[in-house]
């Protein structure tokens, strides 16, 4: 090929054929390794779930959902456990969301950039890695002994709330940071205050990311056992907590907050540690229900997130 510019003058353009073939082999090899890793991970997961389903699915029935624990495996159920999980998760979200989102907004939008903020930031990251049993011990000392909240729903909710707080803060900060600075400048240039900018722009636009973080955090909390055993979860509760509503004003009641509690993982743990085979089947069935509860919780969050994402695109 003739050329005046000298770029194409070389008689042998590009590297020799062998080099490209070699590179392509490496490419294929890596793709294969990746596929293998994914298949292995998936196979383990499918086996575990399949085993759980095989063991537990026969035990699923209305009776199982609506019965209290019993010393007879075929009469035992998870009524107090699943209601406990729902109530504890409600309290966990109620604690972690306002505190976590509030702290993240403060750190991202209001806090001065100095060594104190850096120190706080590092420590929040560290807190997210603290083993959950340590949170259990902290909660036992603080909520049960110091604040006299008892071995109650309130203590359980606060404990798990504290446990996932760092995760909520970190996820919220990431989501807030993803809002382009130009959008903030646009709001400020119109005369918006910091609060206007946060409430009308930063938080609405990062809500998708915040919810994603929240899903992950709550999914972790729903399966926690150790910290709740530490603060005194009971594994045999044959009654329901007080109802959160009542017939006379103000129609809501806080009595249930101080009732003793149990949750699904505790009930499963209790059943698994029994010698009788039938209880193990109960544990597998309870595991399936817990999975369904987790998925349902995630589905709700994903649906909310989709609603917000539809309106916001960069």
């Amino acid at each position, binding site marked *: 090929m003739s050329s005046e510019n000298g770029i194409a003058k070389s008689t042998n353009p590009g590297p020799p054929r062998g080099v490209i073939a070699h590179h392509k082999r490496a490419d294929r090899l890596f793709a294969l390794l990746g596929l293998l890793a994914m298949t292995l991970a998936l196979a383990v997961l499918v086996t575990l779930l399949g085993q759980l389903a095989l063991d537990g699915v026969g035990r699923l029935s209305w009776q199982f959902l609506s019965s209290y624990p019993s010393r007879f495996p075929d009469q035992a159920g998870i009524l107090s456990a699943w209601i406990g999980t729902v109530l504890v998760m409600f309290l966990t979200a109620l604690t972690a969301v306002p505190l976590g989102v509030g702290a993240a907004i403060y750190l991202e939008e209001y806090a001065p950039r100095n060594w104190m903020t850096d120190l706080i930031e590092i420590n929040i990251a560290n807190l997210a890695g603290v083993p959950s049993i340590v949170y259990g011990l902290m909660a036992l000392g603080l909520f049960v002994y110091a604040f006299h909240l008892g071995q109650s729903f309130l203590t359980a909710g606060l404990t798990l709330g504290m446990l996932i707080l760092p995760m909520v803060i970190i996820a919220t900060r990431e989501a807030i940071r993803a809002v*382009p600075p*130009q959008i903030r400048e646009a709001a*400020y240039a*119109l*005369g918006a205050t910091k609060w206007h900018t946060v409430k009308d722009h930063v938080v609405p*636009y990062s809500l998708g990311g915040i919810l994603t973080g929240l899903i992950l955090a709550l999914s972790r909390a729903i399966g926690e056992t150790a910290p709740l055993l530490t603060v005194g979860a009971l594994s045999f509760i044959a009654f329901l907590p007080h109802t959160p509503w009542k017939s006379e004003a103000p129609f809501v009641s806080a009595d249930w907050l101080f009732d003793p509690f149990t949750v699904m993982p505790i009930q499963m743990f209790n059943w698994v540690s029994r010698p009788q085979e039938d209880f193990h089947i109960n544990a597998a069935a309870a595991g399936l229900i817990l999975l369904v509860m987790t998925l349902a919780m995630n589905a709700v969050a994903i649906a909310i997130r989709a609603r917000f994402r539809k309106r*916001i*695109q960069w």
Partner: protein
Amino acid sequence: MTAIADTQDALKAAAKDLSFYYGPVQALKSVSLGLAERRATALIGPSGCGKTTFLRCLNRMHDLYPGNRYEGQLLLYPDQINLISPEVDPIAIRMRVGMVFQKPNPFPKSIYENVAYGVRIRGISQRQELDRIVEHALRDAALWPDIKDRLHSPAFNLSGGQQQRLCIARALATGPEMLLFDEPTSALDPTATARIEELVTALKEKVTIVIVTHNMQQAARVSDYTAFMYEGRLIEHDRTAKMFTNPSNSLTEDYVTGRFG
């Protein structure tokens, strides 16, 4: 010092020995510059000369980031407040001075909500009043015919040029006394650029305009006055026609004839 050579134009703003520091770095060195009311002033100069820094002093945008410091005076007329004084609330200034940015930055909301936002935070929430202001601003920004049937569709569905006109409408809706443009066409194609330039030319009947631009033809087309800045200093400020045909300073001449920059 702040006088605008041989004209009767009233001042809208005037810098007097204005210096500005990003932390230890001095970005503006004792700039004194008058901005004529209801005229367009173009700020030109090579990258890093301080023209955008100067522009962002005019609505106190620098206050959003820590470590920035102003010195000297920047008076806003008619009340002659020194708008960079620490006693002056930057929000009060931004309520009077609007800004259009380099890249179109509409909010990820509907067209209507974009334009209405500045009005809402000024405390107007009556639907009819909002509708009226939004339509008026969109007409002024020459966007109304394009979008009047889809006011409530997302602003992100608009083209780049339309988005920039939406940003202009958003600023206009608040009734600013002065409108700052920071290279408003650098992300747009020539057709969209031409429409923005037409708009700027039309708008200066109503509002004082300051426009930063890298494009000297643009400065020549849209502005009445041009200020040439170099290394944080104001080198020359005069009527645009004179700046581009017969500048007093040899540095200005070299820049406008394309010998550097």
